[in-house]
């Protein structure tokens, strides 16, 4: 069965933050909330600097879903993890449970009260009517319904960020790793993080 996954190739990511900007622009995400972020280590050290674009990894056994007290998460048959903002109470438990720091909480109103959770939807919208205005307001674009891949992956200039069927993405990962002379038995960042703590 098809399972949608992201893969970010740290050998190709150049920390341009294009994916972050594309995501924010496409979904009209407010200031302070980043569904996707780019992390760089060893910045400025020649040969050692590496960057990685991180968002919700749409886990098969999503811990956010396990821990949610209002049961607002659901996993589609294609593996995309979505949530219902009308049910979310903004308690933040998903943030503690998530291995990737995906859940985001904006601050609303003049007192900056913590709002409900927002996260990467794999550009698949949410539980509202597909391609409706309400769905866009709550979750942003539903590009999957339009037959498109997520905005971040579609605009990545170096094709470091890939999104799609896990088996296809895995083939690309193995091809690239083998070409570099790497160990293809090691999985990409995040693909095993939840399972073995690495």
């Amino acid at each position, binding site marked *: 069965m098809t399972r949608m996954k992201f893969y970010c190739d*740290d050998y190709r990511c150049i920390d341009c933050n294009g994916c972050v900007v594309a995501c924010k622009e496409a979904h009209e995400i407010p200031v*302070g*909330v*980043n569904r996707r*972020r780019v*992390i*760089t*280590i*060893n910045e400025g050290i020649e040969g*050692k600097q*590496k960057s*990685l674009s*991180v968002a919700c990894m749409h886990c098969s056994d999503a*811990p956010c879903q*396990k*821990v949610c*007290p*209002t*049961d*607002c998460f659901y996993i589609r048959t294609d593996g995309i993890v979505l949530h*219902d903002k*009308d*049910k*979310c*109470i*903004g*308690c*933040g*438990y998903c*943030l*503690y*449970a998530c*291995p*990737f*720091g995906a859940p*985001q*909480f904006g601050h609303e109103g003049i007192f900056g*009260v*913590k709002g*409900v959770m927002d996260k990467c939807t794999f550009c698949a919208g949410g539980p509202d009517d597909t391609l409706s205005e309400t769905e866009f307001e709550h979750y942003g674009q539903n590009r999957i319904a339009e037959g498109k891949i997520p905005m971040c992956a579609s605009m990545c200039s170096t094709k470091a960020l890939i999104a799609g069927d896990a088996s296809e993405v895995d083939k690309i990962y193995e091809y690239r790793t083998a070409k570099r002379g790497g160990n293809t038995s*090691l999985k990409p*960042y*995040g693909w095993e*993080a*939840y399972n*073995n*703590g*690495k």
Partner: protein
Amino acid sequence: MESKTFWECNKAYILTALGLGVVGFVFVGFMMIMDWGYLIQYTMHMMIGDTSGVLTAPASELEQMVNAAFGPAYNSVAPEIIRASNERQEYIWYVFFAEIMIFVFLYVKNGRLTPTITRPDDMVQVLTPFQRTVIWLNIGMILMLVLTGFNITWSLRSDGGDLPRLLREFHELTGLAWIGVWLVFTVIAAKDLKGWRKNTLFRHILPGSFKPSKRVIWFFYAAMGAGLCFSGAMIITLHPSSLTHADVIQFRRVLLYLHFGASVLIMFFILDFVYASAISVKGYLKGLWTGSYPREYLEQVAPDVLEDLKKAGRQ
């Protein structure tokens, strides 16, 4: 003067330590999945100001990237948070049921002390307006915190939505306001410390010396309240952005766990207090409002308070 044995003097402390020891042993040994070695080392790191959770330098580039992108040692604390969250939702009723059963057992075994009052007009002023204000604020806020706090657990039944969200926000605001009330009560709780008892200011705040059993309740109120105030305030204020996530998430996980643990313990001892002051003896709620208690009530239920009032010259 009647001399008491070590057991008589320290019975409350010993029984509390034994009870918590047994429960703690069962929980830590058979139920929790926390990496205690990591938590102890991490706590020591926190004491020197390092809250990142990275205890040893990363051995590989992979580990370095994981630490920077996702935060370190996910499997050390997070699975325990997930377990505890789920169990709070599913099993919290059993905890309350077990505690009520303990009180039922004690009630059946010891019965209820109902003081005989023949002179209802002979009243003694025990509580000052300031003390009553603090007590009522404490009662109101704790009720609100319990209801809104457990609302997070109960919202599964209400299917989330606006009301539970509002209650969750109210829990945070009330919690911040409670810090001041808890602090005043903590001063009251600490008044029995030898050095502080000599201070007239603390003697004035709350007269009366407590029995060991009541002192245990006060100690737990102060200690667990400190844990709740610290962890709650930090959780509210130390909210990570997407770029600071990896630096603070492990610290927040530990703070949430502290909040969970402290809330369970303080709830136990608050219920214990309710039992001790209103179930095992006939309470006098009116006294909390007026500050005055019948002299005969104090003579039979709280002679130590009456004694202290006499010593303080308020009688």
